[in-house]
């Protein structure tokens, strides 16, 4: 990485031309000056773009920024995008807003760090930019200077980002595909653009850029694996359009489990946008294909008889018979994962778990350690974490056992390091703000 950084710095220095000018400040527009329909449209787009999710600190005011974003390069803090003239974007013209969104350059002309996914937002149409602008400019203004980023030199020099952009920022190629229908096109626009699914679900190179040649082959976000989508998916049951729709809309699917980690806020946002938009995203995502593993595994034998949808024992009849296996699984897991309460509140059969079939043990380890923590008074799956009581060796033996019994794959070679990393990340996350349990 060191070399790369130097490389960028050099490239940056060589690119004085990458200097971008300031766009003149404007008086903050009156919220009432925007058409309410446009504002509503902007609200939906902002949900699809997960704007609130990143630009709101835990217990902080909406859109006022300050959420720490741990990256491999240091910790960034999201900015205040309320229309506060001093600390937010109150003086930004629509042109300045559009440039930030699509080119990653702020009103003053500074390059923005690509934790802000302008590589995806660049696809946003003018109309949608207008709607988003109308939405943000009509939010309550909140005075909140974001905390300074915690980055090593030379990344503190934003001009280095110009080099990064030169190397990696490509306009999205969203040319029409005559073989596909309108819904698919809409879905592609949302998934590739504002939805920025690839930001997590695609692998990134050492400089933190998405590897476009391996799009959707699985990535990483905030210490969680973002599973491969489409052809590379390792889901035991292949995803189809209906399943994707339900998952994105309801936050769970009985054969795939619940969204959690950084995916939880994404589905919370999507739950509020018009159905058609989510349906379009589901159609496009389904067209990415079903994984070979998924297809092979989709034999009825792998779906246990107790699988949801197949006459679960519910409503007060605790029906679990612990399957043969370790005492640990029998004691700690079966009350929920074989308890017969239907998902999402009952745990899914572990034979359906992508956390177990995935090539990385990281999510399973995260789940064993952290569970699905409760978040206030909404109906939600709750899984207690076992991190406090299990030693690393016990986590490893449980994970390995689950992999052996339910995963159908080879043992994970990197289990121990995954556990170490997850433990370290947990301490990290517990420090200023547990972003994933927000």
């Amino acid at each position, binding site marked *: 990485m060191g070399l790369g950084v130097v490389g960028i710095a050099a490239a940056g220095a060589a690119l004085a031309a990458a200097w971008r000018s300031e766009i003149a400040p404007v008086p903050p527009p009156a919220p009432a000056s925007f058409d309410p329909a446009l504002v509503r449209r902007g609200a939906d787009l902002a949900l699809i773009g997960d704007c609130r999710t990143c630009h709101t600190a835990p217990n902080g005011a909406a859109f006022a920024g300050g959420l720490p974003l741990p990256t491999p390069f240091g910790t960034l803090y999201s900015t205040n995008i309320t229309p506060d003239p001093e600390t937010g974007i109150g003086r930004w013209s629509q042109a300045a807003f559009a440039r930030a969104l699509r080119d990653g350059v702020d009103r003053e002309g500074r390059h923005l760090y690509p934790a802000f996914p302008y590589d995806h937002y660049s696809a946003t149409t003018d109309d949608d930019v207008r709607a988003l602008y109308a939405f943000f400019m009509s939010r309550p203004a909140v005075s909140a200077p974001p905390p300074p980023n915690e980055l090593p030199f030379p990344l503190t020099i934003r001009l280095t980002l110009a080099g990064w952009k030169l190397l990696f920022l490509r306009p999205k190629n969203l040319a029409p595909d005559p073989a596909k229908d309108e819904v698919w096109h809409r879905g592609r626009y949302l998934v590739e653009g504002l939805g920025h699914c690839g930001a997590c679900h695609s692998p990134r190179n050492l400089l933190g850029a998405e590897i476009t040649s391996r799009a959707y082959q699985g990535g990483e976000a905030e210490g969680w694996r973002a599973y491969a989508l489409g052809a590379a998916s390792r889901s035991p049951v292949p995803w189809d359009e209906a399943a994707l729709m339900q998952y994105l809309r309801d936050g769970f699917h009985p054969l795939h489990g619940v969204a959690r980690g950084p995916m939880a806020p994404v589905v919370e946002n999507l739950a509020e946008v018009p159905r058609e938009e989510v349906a379009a995203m589901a159609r496009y995502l389904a067209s990415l294909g079903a994984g070979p593993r998924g297809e092979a595994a989709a034999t009825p034998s792998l779906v246990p008889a107790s699988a949801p949808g197949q006459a679960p024992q519910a409503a007060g009849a605790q029906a679990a018979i612990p399957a043969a296996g370790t005492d640990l699984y029998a004691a700690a897991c079966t009350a929920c994962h074989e*308890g017969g309460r239907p998902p999402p509140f009952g745990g899914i059969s572990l034979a359906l778990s992508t956390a177990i079939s995935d090539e990385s043990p990281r999510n399973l380890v995260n789940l064993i350690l952290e569970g699905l923590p409760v978040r206030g008074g909404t*109906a939600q799956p709750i899984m207690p974490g076992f991190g406090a009581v299990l030693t690393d060796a016990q986590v490893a033996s449980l994970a390995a056992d689950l992999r052996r019994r339910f995963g159908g794959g080879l043992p994970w070679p990197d289990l121990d390091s995954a556990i170490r990393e997850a433990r370290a990340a947990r301490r990290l996350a517990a420090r200023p703000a547990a972003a994933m349990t927000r």
Partner: protein
Amino acid sequence: MTLSRRAVLAGTGALVLAFSLLPARAQTETGKGEGPRRRGLPGSLDDTPRLDAWIRVAPDGAVTVLTGKAELGQGLKTALLQIAAEELKLPLARLSLVTADTGRTADEGYTAASHSVQDSGTAIRHAAAQVRALLIGEAARRLDVPAERLRVRDGAVLGPGGARIGYGDLVSDALLTAEAQPTSPLTPAAEFAVIGRPVPRIDIPAKVTGGTAYLQDLRPPGLLHARVVRPPSYGAVLTQVDAAAVERLPGVIAVVRDGTFLGVVAEGEWTAIQAMRRLAASARWRETAILPDAADLPDALRALPSRDSTILERGAPGAAGTIVEGTFTRPYLAHGSIGPSCAIAEWTDGGATVWTHSQGVFPLRRALAGLLHLPEDKVRCIHAEGAGCYGQNGADDVAADAALLARAVPGRPVRVQWMREQEHAWEPFGPGMVASVRAAVTPDGRVADWTHEVWSQSHMMRPGPPGALLAAREIAEPFPPAPPVALAQPEGGGDRNAIPLYAFPTAKIVHHFLPDMPLRGSSMRSLGGYLNVLAIESTVDDLARAAGWDPVAFRLRHLTDARASAVVEAAAQRFGWGRGAPRAGRGFAFARYKNLEAYCAVAVEITVDRETGQVGIERVVAAVDTGEVVNPDGVANQIEGGLLQATSWTLFERVAFDRTRVASVDWSAYPILRFSAVPRSVEVHIVAQPDQPFLGVAEAAQGPAGAALANAIRDATGRRLRDLPLTAGKIKAALGA
């Protein structure tokens, strides 16, 4: 369709045609006190006049107080002992207390409806005062001095010249078997040394140190553990189960199957649970889709056959003015005890002893005797504390389960505890309800017209009748379901608090009693009072707004009861109502519980996260007048609890179900208040009324708390939300983009 639902709810096919043909029985919620007083004696003395049914003095001076009521976590034991200590002039620590036990105490019906201090406290106070008088009289006789010259202190009668005779020496076999007199030499309030003090609750030390504090903690010698397998849905019939395989498991003593009733008895608790799971996994059921569409519940309720009664008609309706109208709905709510229901039963000498946290040991005994085909005197029910129940939870049902399972292993006590899913799926819920209000206000801010209609099934399906118990409907020869009970005004059931306390010149209140039971329901704190107060107080708020009046001033000008006004003013003043700018919304509400019990006014300030619709409660201020206060800290504790519980009902709660099954069978699917939504501050102010009778307080806060919150949400969003729960999603939608 309706017929089949009734049939299925009854447990088997053809049986229950008689169900809705039975006349509704008017009855009170405590199961006592209907009709005129028999003897004209105070409180429960009227039913049980012998003094030694309440107070016993042993020759060694030890004093035992007996009550037919039960400790439910409301601090009753402490309050009753305070009362007895006051009148007997004894330190609290020298008294012991026996609570509800069919073998020892008076029959005081159900511990319900905030009646305990009123019924039992009054009886104990008078009995204690009369016992004191008898002891003094006896001392006077022995010392040969007039009673007026004697005093009592510390368990002894003191006379001139240092004469001192302890209570134990004075008491003789016959002395306290006397019947109570109508009047008693009560200690005047001004002289109280124990009543009115914040005496620490006697039950708390054991609860915070791991002492034996609950029924769940009892371990009689030879104790066995048992679990039941409940059907997956209402009316499901057990068609097949592999009992033999489970019976062979090590540690399993017996599998009991009687019709659809299924349970297992084992040596250890974990063994019992595992055996239960195996049984459940091998069980096959025939289920029927009999539940209404949850999404249309309010319409489904209003479409049910109803028995209508106009409970108030005053003035000529239809006066002109600005109209405010709306329909308020609440879903079914779960009691949601943190400890699932539990009971211990032991079968000896052809009879049964049952330790239970039922709210009514005597009615339960009646039901169990019926179920077990035993004479009543062969069944003894002893109350032991469970987790808070807030009405009828599974306590009675699990007692029946325990009795049936214990019958299979005579001579050994059997402890049954429900699993969480069983409690959530099978407890009798607080019924879903609809209340529709239409009112008019004149330009000068007077309410000119008021119509309130409420639809609800019974809120009172407790045993007595064996058919009220789940197991009694599951066994091969089932008992018919208990006939639905419409509780009568003035206390009311679904129509509790439907009559506003305000002096509206015209008012018409109609109660649509629904004998049908779409879901199993029974008493839950404040019964219909919660929704009716919410409907009234929301509408009053909107009327005030429509007429341009401050909501507190508007209420005050329609109140004629001085105590009501005093409570409203106290809450407003402590809150600083009308001062400063609200953060996002403020709300106010008031009610007198049942129009007969404690007065309570609540003011709330909230914030609302505009992006998520999440409510943050900044401040709650309540004022309460509960008449004479036995234990001010106990009153505050109860009111605080009511405020927070109603907050949970109002913001979060809803029993979920599909056409066949209850779906909200755990805390994941049935969310309640967690600490993140707990108000930043809660203040309770007691408006003192010494020398006034005790008023029931346990359920006084729920209605006003829910209504004040609803009004604050109205204030914050500009929209009136009428369908409970007022979730973040609904609030967000109300706010618009």
